[in-house]
């Protein structure tokens, strides 16, 4: 999977790249409009992450250009502007998702994965992690072949974990993933805790190993025990 990150802030581009490379992606960066223009003309990418404000141009133009070249490439906008008009315009010209800065790398990663699943296999793919199988199209979860009933939030939580295996996830990033930005985090942290407790219990009941580990002061990590 090849991903292009168009972002002028060097440090942020680096962080995104590091995070994606660890997950097995081939990642390239472009810091300017010209750079990005050149790269999308020369190479083919599965997904492009675009910052809207670039020193020498506008991210929207890159998306338009890209959509003319290869329409199937997934596009995720990352922007500092939290304006409705920008989001609508982005969707209109063919982007798939919009993330407002500052965002969580884990969230970006989850969105990229979900986007690629939809783009590449039309959603007809299963996500496997050891004995856990998730079928995104029907939103069903199997552990050791047994159907496991999860609530909507528990399912979202599991998918978020599976998109970020072996990664320490902060409570805030989990809360924002589940409820969006508008929730008071004092409550949401408690709610995250209760959802994780339930998810863990349901997975254990079906004979899965205990993959959810809590990290003191930070949050949780989904990995091999």
């Amino acid at each position: 999977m090849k991903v292009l990150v168009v972002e002028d802030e060097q440090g942020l581009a680096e962080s995104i790249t590091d995070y994606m490379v660890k997950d097995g992606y081939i990642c390239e960066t472009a810091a300017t409009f010209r750079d990005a223009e050149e790269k999308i003309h020369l190479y083919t990418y599965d997904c492009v992450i675009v910052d809207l404000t670039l020193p020498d141009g506008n991210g929207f133009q890159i998306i338009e250009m890209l959509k003319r070249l290869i329409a199937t490439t997934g596009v995720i906008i990352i922007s500092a502007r939290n304006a409705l008009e920008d989001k609508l315009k982005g969707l209109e010209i063919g982007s798939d998702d919009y993330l407002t800065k500052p965002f969580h790398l884990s969230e970006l990663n989850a969105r990229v994965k979900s986007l690629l699943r939809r783009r590449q296999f039309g959603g007809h793919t299963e996500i496997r992690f050891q004995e856990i199988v998730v079928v995104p199209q029907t939103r069903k979860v199997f552990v050791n072949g047994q159907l496991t009933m999860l609530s909507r939030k528990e399912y979202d939580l599991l998918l978020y974990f599976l998109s970020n295996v072996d990664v320490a996830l902060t409570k805030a990033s989990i809360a924002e993933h589940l409820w969006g930005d508008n929730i008071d985090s004092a409550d949401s942290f408690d709610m995250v805790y209760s959802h994780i407790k339930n998810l863990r219990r349901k997975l254990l009941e079906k004979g899965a190993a205990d993959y959810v580990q809590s990290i003191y002061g930070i949050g949780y990590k989904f990995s091999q025990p």
Partner: protein
Amino acid sequence: MKLLTKTNQIYLTFSLVIYLLTGLAFYQIIRLLIYDEVESRLKVERRDFETYVRTHNAWTSAPYFVENKIEVRPVSKRVPIAEAFKDTLIQNRYDNELIPFRQLTFYEPIHGVVHRVSIRKSLIQTYRLIEVISIAMVLFLGLLLLGMFWFQRKLSGRLWLPFYDTLSRIKQFDLNNDTSLLLSKPEITEFNELNDVLQKMAAKMQQDFRSLKEFTENASHEMQTPLALINAKVEQLIQTEQLTETQTNWIESIYQASRRISRLNQGLLLLAKIENRQFSDTQSVDLSALLTEKLTDMEEVLSFKQLSVEVQTTAPFDVQLPASLADSLVTNLVNNAIKHNQPNGRIELTSTADQLCLSNTGGQLTSDPERLFERFKKESTGPDSVGLGLAIVRQICDSYSLHIAYRETGGIHEFCISRIG
């Protein structure tokens, strides 16, 4: 009062005074001249009379045709005046009309006896003359006055035309609109200069307003990007396996602080944007439906905090708001009602066509209720509260002619929104 009315008024008053004074002076001068003339003729007649008396040493009195022209009466004692003029009225012998006369009185000895002699001259012709002259003068001066008045009115109307043109254009000028102020180039230097200055000022204002708007956007970008960087680096840092407990605590503090700055920044930018009226696409929004929907969305939080919700909407409460602000308004209201609630508390939404109220149970307010809507007024000291929620609610209401009121009765905190006007 209008400028032209004012100048006309001043002009009219001033010219009327001048007109009256001129009229009066003119009348006096004519009168003086005429009296002078009559009196000099009377003096001539006196000389004639004296010559006659000296020659004939007698006076045959009162020929019938001359109406009381010369009256001679013997007097016993001579009064010590040489001669005196006076106005007198004498009755016409036919129609009993009083006729004005000028009379010269002097004393003359005839046959050794002192006689008082009065020579009279009718002033009736003179009076008519004065009348005619006066009427003519009033007429001409009046016409002149009216003519000048009319001319002056026309003239100033025309002279001030560019000024009124400029005024109406400035009135139509809208800062929010991107069209620049276009003014005509009148030939009068002062107006030309005025238009020049106004045009420059408007351009400067527009530029400032634009850069303010740009600043709002740029500030967002410039601050959110480093914050995103901090967040990303913190996220990478926590992946490190061998963190000590203290290090973890530090990292968590950094993380929370950066999230708070981000929320703060977003809140302040939203406030600035509302103040600058950068949301223009208002539409009719049913706030009560939107609030009900929001409460349903928050069901999970509500049940987690064991809060019961009661909705009593008798009629939709429609307001004119941009969609994103309507959402921001209800989100902040609901968040506030949840955050300051107590366990097993209640949230109640009531709405009529004129008013919408959201009330919640909760503890006593620790600060002044008047200052509840101020920025950075926080009831709780939680790290996630930035104290802008109600300020945003207030700003939205203020900017879109809505009124928000807070009331607290027996542990129930109620926020009511109503339309102004």
